[in-house]
């Protein structure tokens, strides 16, 4: 098993946000997590990526047989976890190419490998840019600064392509995209899928799942996964919304 989340509870500033999440992810699988606004999807994604503002108050997370919660964010990334942010951060003054070059070399250093020289690095990234159809001029621009919503999301997938993660967590990478951009992003994700890696897709919309077919769909509601199913669950949610889950007795749903 690649990832196992057991009874994960987290809080921030005394508010409990995740209230006992259980999830198992195997290599080769795609999991979709859906749920209403504020249910804790991004919190879950960020906790997995190692954001320290959240306190884990109970539970554990095992990743590749290791206690993930003990690792710092950078080490999680080096071990193959990648988070595509719902709101990618703008960093004025830092170019995309500088970020990627530093990231790639920091990861290589972690594995005791030589740094890539400029030529090797450029050929790597040029290759990966094609996947998300980004223009080369984009490399020199500051990270996410002044990017359109679609460009930001494509940039996340581009970084993912370069870093080649084992476990990718895509937090609403589809939100705000027009249909062309959506196809580019979905296509990028599909190209990177393999039997060795896994993807967790957080989304509000079934539409993305037309392009990236999930093996499992989970509903996160009020800090808990209240229902899990196959891809048909996404259609049901799209049709009925979440109210039928809210109104039902939590016990019945969980069972």
């Amino acid at each position, binding site marked *: 098993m690649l990832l196992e989340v057991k009874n994960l509870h987290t809080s921030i500033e005394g508010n409990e946000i995740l209230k006992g999440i259980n999830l198992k992810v195997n290599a080769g699988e795609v999991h979709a997590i859906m749920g209403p606004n504020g249910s804790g999807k991004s919190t879950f994604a960020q906790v997995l990526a190692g954001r320290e503002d959240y306190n884990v108050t109970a539970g554990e997370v095992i990743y590749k047989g290791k206690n993930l919660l003990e690792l710092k*964010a950078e080490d999680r990334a080096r071990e193959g976890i990648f988070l595509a942010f719902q709101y990618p951060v703008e*960093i*004025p003054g830092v170019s995309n190419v500088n970020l990627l070059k530093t990231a790639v070399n*920091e990861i290589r250093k972690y594995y005791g490998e030589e740094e890539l020289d400029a030529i090797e690095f450029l050929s790597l990234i040029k290759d990966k840019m094609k996947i998300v159809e980004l223009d080369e001029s984009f490399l020199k621009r500051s*990270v996410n600064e002044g990017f359109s919503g679609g460009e930001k999301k494509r940039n996340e997938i581009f*970084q993912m392509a370069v870093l080649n993660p084992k476990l990718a967590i895509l937090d609403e990478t589809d939100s705000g995209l027009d249909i062309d951009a959506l196809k580019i992003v979905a296509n990028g994700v599909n190209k990177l899928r393999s039997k060795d890696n896994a993807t967790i897709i957080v989304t509000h919309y079934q539409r993305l799942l037309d392009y990236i077919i999930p093996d499992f769909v989970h509903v996160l509601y009020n800090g808990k996964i209240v229902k899990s199913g196959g891809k048909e669950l996404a259609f049901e949610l799209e049709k009925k919304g979440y109210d039928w889950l809210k109104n039902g007795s939590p016990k019945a749903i969980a069972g």
Partner: protein
Amino acid sequence: MEKIREFKEWFVKHFDDFEKNLNGEKTPEVHKLRKDALSKFKELSFPSLKDEEWKYTNISPLLKYNFSPVSSGKKVSSELIKKFLFDKMEHNFIVFINGRFSQENSKLLALPKGVIAGSISDAIKEKNPLIEKHFGKYANLSDQIFTALSTAFTKDGAFIYVPEGKVIEEPVHIIFLTSNGNKKIITQPRNLFIAGKNSRVTIIEHYVTENKGVYFTNTVTEIVAEENAVVNHIKLQEESIEAFHIARMEVDQERDSNFTSVLFSNGGNISRNDFNTHFNDEGGECKLNGLFLLDDNQLFDAHTLIDHAKPNCSSHEHYRGILDDNARGVFNGKVLVRPDAQKTNAFQQNNNILLSNNASVDTKPQLEIFADDVKCSHGATIGQLDNDAKFYLNSRGIGDEAAKAILLHAFASDVIKSVKINSVRNYIEEILSKRFNQDDL
């Protein structure tokens, strides 16, 4: 108190010796300035925290030392000088060692006809009429004890004159090297730069040291930008961490002149930069940018004044500071818009990043506006490293050290970008990299 009196009396007593050693520099005009300045120096007292302009900068650590001047010139190896050249490349540079011009260490490539770049001591000896016209005319002495000290002991410094219509493409790089062999010395470079009508020049004042340790640089620079002149000024202060650096810069801007300055400082024990520009006629433009990097117990103080005395001028000021450990920063930027100065545009900004809980900045951007049809804005921020950005970088596998270095570079880049010469920009970038890759910053 006792120490302060001693400090002062030492200079007063020493003046006779100094005077005896003057040769051709003792022209009546300049020597009168010296003597007047000496009386002023006797009369004024050293500033204390009670003085509004020195409220956050306690100079008593400076006054407890006895500094001695270096009377004779010195030559150093060209290898040493090379360390301070940009991209290690040779370009126009003039070198002052312990405040004295060193012809042997300087190198001037072909300059346009009529251009002077050299020692002010020579200009005084030669009775250059520009000295009488400009020297001491901008850096007034009222309430300025350090300028009075500088003027009283006027001996050497850089003199640059670009005649009307001349353009110098290559920057003129002035290296002020302190090579004190651990003696506590004082050097007082006294500089005068004159850019004639329609001329263009880039001048770099570069303060460097061969040794660590305590010494005192007290420098005064007067800059005149005549009508429609374009003057780029860069000051790099790379002194010893224990050095005291007190600098006064006065800029006179005539009609339609354009003055741009970037001040880069690595700090010292105490550094104080008073940077004042005056629009003496309409249509001028002035940009003051600054970047200071401090750690340990360093104190850096930038006091700037942009005097909009005439209409239709614009000024843009942006200072940034990065402070670690117990370092302290002071930014006091005054923009004065006088009643006549309609259609003034003035923008002023100071941003600081504190890397430790013990670092602090006192920032005071001040607008004093006495005209009604003007556009002015100012602001200041003091913050920490952006946590969201840091997490974003961490989440890409970038460790804390590297993430910090990247973000600080980015913060500094707004100011560094304003240095238009690639090789100088790279030189500053390199200083930054070295500094940020140290464990303690």
